[in-house]
């Protein structure tokens, strides 16, 4: 319900002021209002300027939205979508750069989605809006500017992607790299570099953080026997920890190496450009971790 980086550009003209509301900058209030409207059968889509501001409204996301179907024993479902940019942008400092995937994915009653490509964004958002439960839709500000090729099927007005299913972006046989959002692009770049060194990496675009597509992740690890989890957020208690545990629980005997976890640095995001670069995973971090998991810390080819 707030104007942000022109994602909602044109919507006001198309759907009118009854359906596209400009609100005061009062997150707790307008989020709670959206939840109350959802209780009564409307389907609100709440926009946070960034997910950092969702912390002002997190009580309503969790206590009024996520838990209501359970507390009311199925009487009150909450068909609401909370969307907005999540994670680090560029030079915006500590209070504007946090990734909330792990926070929201921790809560039963929420569905948490993180699109990467244009196809993901379109299909997942449509599913999120039609889903009868609260969905947290974590976009990425830097991905807004990237272009992706799409097929005609994607442009179809009823195109939707299932919630809870990951996508194999690149098939491989030596190592599995799981990622979501912007990191999928980095993983694909790393996979390209690794392929020149004879390491074939399988890149999984998680798409859905909760529910996590444990079947796809485990099937991939059983094939490759090595795992690198990749995320932009803080490492402790992050998405990678959950993925690692899922693999330990279901596919322990298939692992040939310890699981490698790549995450952002365990510090609030610094402002200086060089420090910010160090605080977020880069492509060579992914390449190095993949090589460690393959027990090939030294480069095989003359070119690194």
């Amino acid at each position, binding site marked *: 319900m707030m104007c942000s980086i022109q994602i909602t550009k044109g919507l006001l003209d198309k759907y009118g002021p009854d359906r596209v509301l400009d609100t005061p900058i009062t997150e707790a209030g*307008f989020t709670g*209002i959206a939840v109350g409207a959802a*209780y009564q059968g409307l389907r609100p889509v709440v926009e946070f300027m960034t997910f950092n501001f969702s912390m002002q409204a997190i009580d309503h996301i969790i206590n009024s939205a996520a838990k209501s179907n359970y*507390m009311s024993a199925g009487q009150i479902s909450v068909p609401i979508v909370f969307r907005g940019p999540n994670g680090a942008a560029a030079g915006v400092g500590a209070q504007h750069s946090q990734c909330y995937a792990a926070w929201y994915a921790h809560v039963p009653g929420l569905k948490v989605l993180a699109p990467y490509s244009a196809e993901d964004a379109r299909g997942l958002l449509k599913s999120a809006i039609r889903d009868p439960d609260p969905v947290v839709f974590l976009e990425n500000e830097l991905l807004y500017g990237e272009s992706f090729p799409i097929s005609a099927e994607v442009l179809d007005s009823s195109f939707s992607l299932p919630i*809870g299913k990951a996508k194999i972006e690149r098939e491989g046989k030596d190592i599995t790299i799981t990622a979501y959002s912007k990191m999928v692009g980095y993983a694909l770049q790393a996979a390209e570099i690794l392929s020149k060194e004879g390491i074939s990496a399988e890149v999984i675009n998680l798409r859905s953080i909760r529910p996590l597509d444990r079947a796809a992740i485990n099937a991939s690890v059983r094939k490759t026997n090595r795992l690198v989890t990749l995320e932009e957020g803080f490492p402790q208690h992050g998405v990678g920890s959950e993925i690692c545990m899922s693999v330990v629980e279901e596919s322990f005997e298939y692992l040939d190496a310890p699981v490698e976890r790549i995450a952002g640095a365990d510090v609030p995001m610094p402002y200086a450009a060089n420090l910010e670069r160090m605080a977020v995973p880069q492509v060579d971090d992914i390449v190095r971790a993949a090589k460690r998991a393959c027990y090939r810390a030294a480069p095989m080819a003359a070119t690194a």
Partner: protein
Amino acid sequence: MAAASFTAAKFLAPVAARSGGDRAPLHASSSLWPRTKPAPRLRTRKALAVSDVLSGNKAAPAAAAHPSATRDEALELYEDMVLGRFFEDMCAQMYYRGKMFGFVHLYNGQEAVSTGFIKLLNQADCVVSTYRDHVHALSKGVPPRSVMAELFGKATGCCRGQGGSMHMFSAPHNLLGGFAFIGEGIPVATGAAFAAKYRHEVLKESGPDGLDVTLAFFGDGTCNNGQFFECLNMAQLWKLPIVFVVENNLWAIGMSHVRATSDPEIWKKGPAFGMPGVHVDGMDVLKVREVAKEAIERARRGEGPTLVECETYRFRGHSLADPDELRKPDEKSHYAARDPIAALKKYIIEQNLATESELKSIEKKIDDVVEEAVEFADASPLPPRSQLLENVFSDPKGFGIGSDGKYRCEDPLFTQGTAQV
């Protein structure tokens, strides 16, 4: 430049001068403020309610003639208040016998507010409450046996035992909870009002009476909370059909209203946002009902929200775990003498609307209803183990149906996708 000596008194002096005029700062006893002379009548008061301030200010309009009721109305109100009182008393008994557990917050003393407001509503109107929600549920029509079974944590409760005392939901009665955090229900209520207006004006689903109205009940402590103000603003901005009902019982858990609030006259916060603010004696059900009628009708006509401050009192502690040691005995007896049920009984008898024995038979009937509710709850089963994992989601599979009507996630080729990087 030599700095002038900076003392606390000098810093605070301008503020003291400003407020020393008409009215002394009401928290003059706090050590944070300089000692200014309070107005004499306030200094002798121990229990300080907003009505004391109003009568001191002579700012309140002269009390209108006492509102009246017909026999049927009066008996309906009496029965509802007695149900609320007897039910809560039974809750206390059951709690001390171990049948009820956790946090239980009782409504004794405040019945006039629930009855006065909710008995004016239709089925389609919504009520949003706090953790002190048993009596709001009963007034809205949730059967006493469902509420009691919910409190016992049984599968026959209105939420099948999933919610408990603080989370009463009933979709058929449009009771939208039951919230533990203070202020949490206010935005939800504002949203329900938004949906009512949206359905009426945009979807053109008109009800015969006008807009469906939402009532938000909350306490004095909540009136200092940020989301209260956010919602006063948005409700008035969009002219939503809502009534904000403040149950000012002077105590927010253990925090006294006058010690916590810069300006204790809560009704004034309405006009600050452009809506009417009304103060009413919340121990008199007929006065509450009269104010409620006006506020609900305003909302139904589409004229927007009203803030109603009901001065009331809870006879018991904040919860059954509260030893209630902070409140002074003379404050408690001052309000016990204004028991809303006794007051209505007196009115009914003095106006010859019913006899003493008729009222006694209503009480006996309610006694039986509450006993039956306990028996029902006792005899009901605990939830089955399978219920633990139910109802986390309305649709556990998640939306993802393709144009052929099948679930996409069942299609083995689907995760291939088309994007290339």
